[in-house]
């Protein structure tokens, strides 16, 4: 199993959209995927269903209101994809949790996911790397850094790398899966320039080959509460972007090595 978090200093860069669509793509590619929403705003749940605000989830687990992850996880139409919503943050916050216990509770969550046969655990975080997001990132094997392709946003790249460098100096084993350029605008020269500059500046292993463009279909999908691939019967081309990102993640994180087994080198098309 790999645990993968998203992190960004800035809000509104498309973390939640990325998490939902990426989780869906990974699940479609056959990986048992658990998407965990650690953002108190509950963006994942709110993107998918109106009723998730009332459901228990991550924060209920964190403060010990529910110790069985299985009771908190929501099934989806794909057996390979499950979701752990943020849960009732306010109720959990009133009850409180011990800050020192957060890393250990996160480790417990990772173990529970492993026991449930999860291949890929994706944790969506709140913007700004607050204390919770920091703990979540530190608990993970990899972090993806979505960066909005506009000047102000990318200027925070060194700051983010510095923060991650600090995590590692503190002993956390989290590795950078890559920076992912999001909301790249075809019509904006500045956006294009930012993307080109970052690509020229960073080594290829630090930047995803695939960008995420700024498209209305992401908004539409969010409004309808579905991953973009489920927007229409025949998914729009942009849905395949997330399959490409999923493929890159498999390569960058070694997920393929973990999943490949003897006898699975290839499959027959006809029988």
């Amino acid at each position, binding site marked *: 199993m790999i645990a993968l978090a998203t992190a960004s200093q800035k809000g509104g860069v498309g973390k939640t959209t990325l998490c939902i669509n990426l989780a869906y793509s990974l699940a479609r590619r056959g990986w048992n995927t658990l998407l965990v929403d650690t953002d108190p705003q509950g963006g994942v749940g709110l993107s998918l269903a109106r009723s998730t605000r009332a459901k228990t989830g991550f924060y209920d687990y964190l403060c010990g209101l529910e110790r069985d992850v299985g009771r908190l996880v929501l099934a989806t139409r794909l057996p390979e994809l499950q979701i752990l919503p943020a849960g009732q943050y306010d109720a959990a916050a009133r009850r409180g949790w011990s800050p020192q216990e957060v890393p250990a509770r996160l480790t417990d969550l990772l173990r529970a996911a492993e026991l449930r046969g999860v291949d890929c655990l994706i944790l969506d975080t709140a913007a700004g790397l607050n204390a919770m997001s920091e703990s979540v990132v530190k608990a993970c094997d990899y972090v993806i850094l979505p960066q909005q392709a506009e000047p102000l946003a990318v200027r925070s790249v060194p700051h983010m*790398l510095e923060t*991650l460098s600090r995590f590692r*100096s503190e002993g956390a084993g989290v590795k950078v899966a890559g920076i992912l350029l999001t909301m790249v605008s075809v019509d904006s020269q500045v956006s294009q320039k930012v993307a080109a500059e970052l690509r*020229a*500046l960073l080594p290829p292993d630090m930047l995803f080959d695939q960008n995420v463009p700024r498209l209305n279909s992401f908004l539409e999908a969010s409004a309808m509460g579905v991953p973009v691939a489920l927007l229409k019967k025949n998914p729009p081309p*942009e849905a395949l972007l997330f399959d490409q990102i999923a*493929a890159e993640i*498999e390569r960058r994180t070694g997920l393929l090595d973990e999943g490949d087994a003897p006898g*699975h080198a290839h499959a027959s098309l006809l029988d």
Partner: protein
Amino acid sequence: MPQATLMQVSWIDANEVDALLGHLRDPAPAAQAQEPSALGTGWGKESAAAEATAETSLPSARSHPLSHHSDLQSFREKLQALQSHAIQAGFLAPSEDEETATPLVIALPTVKPNPPMPEPFPTAPPAAEAATPQREASWGSSVEERFSSFARWVRTRFPDAGLYIVGDQGEMLWGHGTVQQSLVQTTIAAWLALKRMGSTHALETTPVLRQPMADGRHLLAIACPTRLGLLHLALTRALPITDDGVPELRTRLIRSIDLGA
């Protein structure tokens, strides 16, 4: 990597980023890992009450917060060892990877073509390089579609049988609207309750229920561990299904759910 220049738009210093990337590529300095209290988790000063809570927490919660990676690694190894022991002892069925897989119908992949994106967007590696994990299957089919596919197979194998699939909490997942639905559901719910009360059921590798029904048909229920959890496959038929048919039914349902086959 270009030499240090302030970028025109992004204002990023290439040298600074280069140095930071160097830090990020270094192996995590485990020896330098600090004690939990000095980790700077950003939670502020821990309260005495919190410390007291930590003392009464679960054993795992008292472990070193930053030892989770090695903890998890050893936990994974232990888990794998336990699984192999259980498989060798016959308590667990080998996973699909370990079985000799029979050929399956393959759905045409849906992710092969590169997305037709506008030119400025670079594309990911070609499909051959970033290939889908080569497991059999029509990944992406919904639970309903997988049940439906299994039901089609059952119809070819036992055309006269009524098919029901019941969840581990007794909920009817397949077979709604049939005359016998409630009778089957009640029977399986009672069986589940009985199984939970007993202590020996955990040792059964393939729990099976056989029961004659009031209308003279025979009910066969088989517990099937799938990635959706424990499902109970139930068939009602005028003639009882022999023991020889049980493994095939069980394997087929598991494959349908777990592999979309």
